[in-house]
């Protein structure tokens, strides 16, 4: 009954809304429209991929790209407004802001990627282990991850950074400690969903060892959604890392890092706003590029958005 009438009631408006040109006798078919959509995802992928690659390259070659030594102080030109010589001005020690922003990309972007890579690998391995073995180890590890998930993230990271002391490395450790459970959960649920699959049983019957089954067959089949999550996490982690640095729990001066640079510039907001503006803009743009890239990769990985 539901099937008879409701299907019709639901299907019809759908035809009208989403597929305006399709009528019963229409010569226009869904394929083209879907093709165009897939094209746009691809275009976005290329654009944001290139932008992200550009940021990444910039952070790798930051030493070569910076016009001045980012740590070179020159009190004579302290708090200079942007000019031809110093495109983004200078800070209160007279350091060139452009050079510092470029140099800061190493600490900000590079450490973020490292952090995301670490939590992805650790979280996935724990999740697969739990999902595959089940029983007690699973219960214990998942309760531990519950505990981590229950903490307000930044507060916990502050506590860890406080205990271990400041510094970029400790900030990364702190953020890794609160971020792995998300990956463990995804990997675990994916593993549980795949564990009873016939192809894994077939691999067992082919005489493959458990390690081989997991790394050769299971992981390639569950890694998609995990990688998408890590892509989406790059932006978030960049913000949190900058946030910790801003609070003085991340990068230590004189290391150029966008978060700590903003923190430095707080007192100059009224007198020399460009000092706060450039690292802020750098964070904003990088986070946006990586978030949009993550979104695009998620769309691309989801076959429903690619083809009908």
């Amino acid at each position: 009954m539901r099937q008879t009438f409701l299907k019709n009631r639901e299907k019809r408006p759908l035809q009208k809304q989403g597929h305006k040109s399709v009528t019963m006798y229409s010569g226009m078919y869904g394929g083209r429209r879907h093709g165009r959509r897939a094209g746009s995802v691809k275009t976005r992928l290329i654009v944001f991929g290139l932008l992200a690659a550009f940021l990444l390259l910039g952070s790798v070659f930051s030493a070569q790209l910076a016009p001045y030594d980012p740590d070179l102080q020159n009190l004579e030109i302290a708090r200079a407004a942007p000019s031809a010589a110093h495109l983004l001005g200078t800070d209160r020690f007279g350091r060139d802001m452009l050079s510092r922003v470029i140099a800061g990309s190493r600490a900000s972007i590079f450490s973020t990627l490292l952090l995301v890579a670490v939590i992805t690998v650790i979280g996935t391995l724990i999740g697969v282990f739990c999902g595959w073995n089940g029983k007690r180890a699973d219960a214990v590890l998942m309760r531990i991850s519950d505990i981590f998930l229950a903490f307000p993230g930044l507060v916990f990271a502050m506590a860890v950074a406080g205990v271990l002391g400041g510094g970029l490395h400790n900030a990364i450790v702190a953020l890794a400690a609160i971020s792995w459970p998300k990956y463990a959960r995804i990997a675990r649920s994916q593993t549980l969903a795949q564990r009873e699959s016939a192809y894994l049983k077939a691999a067992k019957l082919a005489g493959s060892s458990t390690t081989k089954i997991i790394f050769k067959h299971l992981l390639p089949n569950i890694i998609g959604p995990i990688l998408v999550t890590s892509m989406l996490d790059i932006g978030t982690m960049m913000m949190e890392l900058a946030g910790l640095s801003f609070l003085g729990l991340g990068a230590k001066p004189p290391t150029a890092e966008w978060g700590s640079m903003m923190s430095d510039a707080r007192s100059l907001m009224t007198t020399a706003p460009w000092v706060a503006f450039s690292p802020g803009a750098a964070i904003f743009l990088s986070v946006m590029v990586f978030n949009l890239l993550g979104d695009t990769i998620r769309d691309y990985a989801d076959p429903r958005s690619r083809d009908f």
Partner: protein
Amino acid sequence: MQDNNKGPVLEVRDLTKIYKRRGQDTVTAVDGVSFSLHPGECLGIIGESGSGKTTLVNMIARLTDPDRGQILLKGREITRLRGRDLRSVYAEMQMVFQQPADSFDPRRTLGDGIGESLRNNGWSAAAAREESGKLLEQCGLPAGFAERWPHEVSGGQCQRAAIARALAIRPSILLCDEATSALDVTIQQEILDLLGTLRRQMGAGFSILFICHDIALVQQFCDRVLVMYQGKIVEEGIPDAVIRKPSHPYTRRLIDSIL
């Protein structure tokens, strides 16, 4: 191990599997099942969904651990084997699954799946690849299918490839778990013809345990049949005889329900 001609290739004694779910009654999926599979024999197991036949075959293939009972492969107990010892069991016993497409890793080619058991047993990648082609031809597919992906072939072709994979290591027992149920009838017939040909080629060195819900198919294909109901074997015999004179009320009802 060498005692092939005498005694069963596979013997199951009092095999039992109990599922305990929190907040629910325990379910005895398989309840004290015993039977033997003889060399060269094709033994059918029929039953409705929920009768426990899939749990039974999963226990025999050591994919599920039994709660009680013994499984003997050519006289050697394999019920509790693990690791390397268990892997040696799979050189004697292979399985064909119900959903052919699901039984191949979607991210690997058919040839890769077929050759996996060979590579695990010391074959070089090149030799395994060549053998995969030969096995595919033996199962009625061109050797070039080794390069195809599981989603690129039809259900029937995929099941042929799955049989090729099962045969790669030259097992003496083939477990077929509803191996033809997901296929169209004409394709089902082709697969049965293929299995029949393989049986004739290999004679007493090759036995089949054929799990199926279609009693007509079992009558056509099997030498002997076991009827499973609520986890127990309620009837055993030559298919024609069982169908003509079922002794258990369940079997009678089952046969009467066939359209």
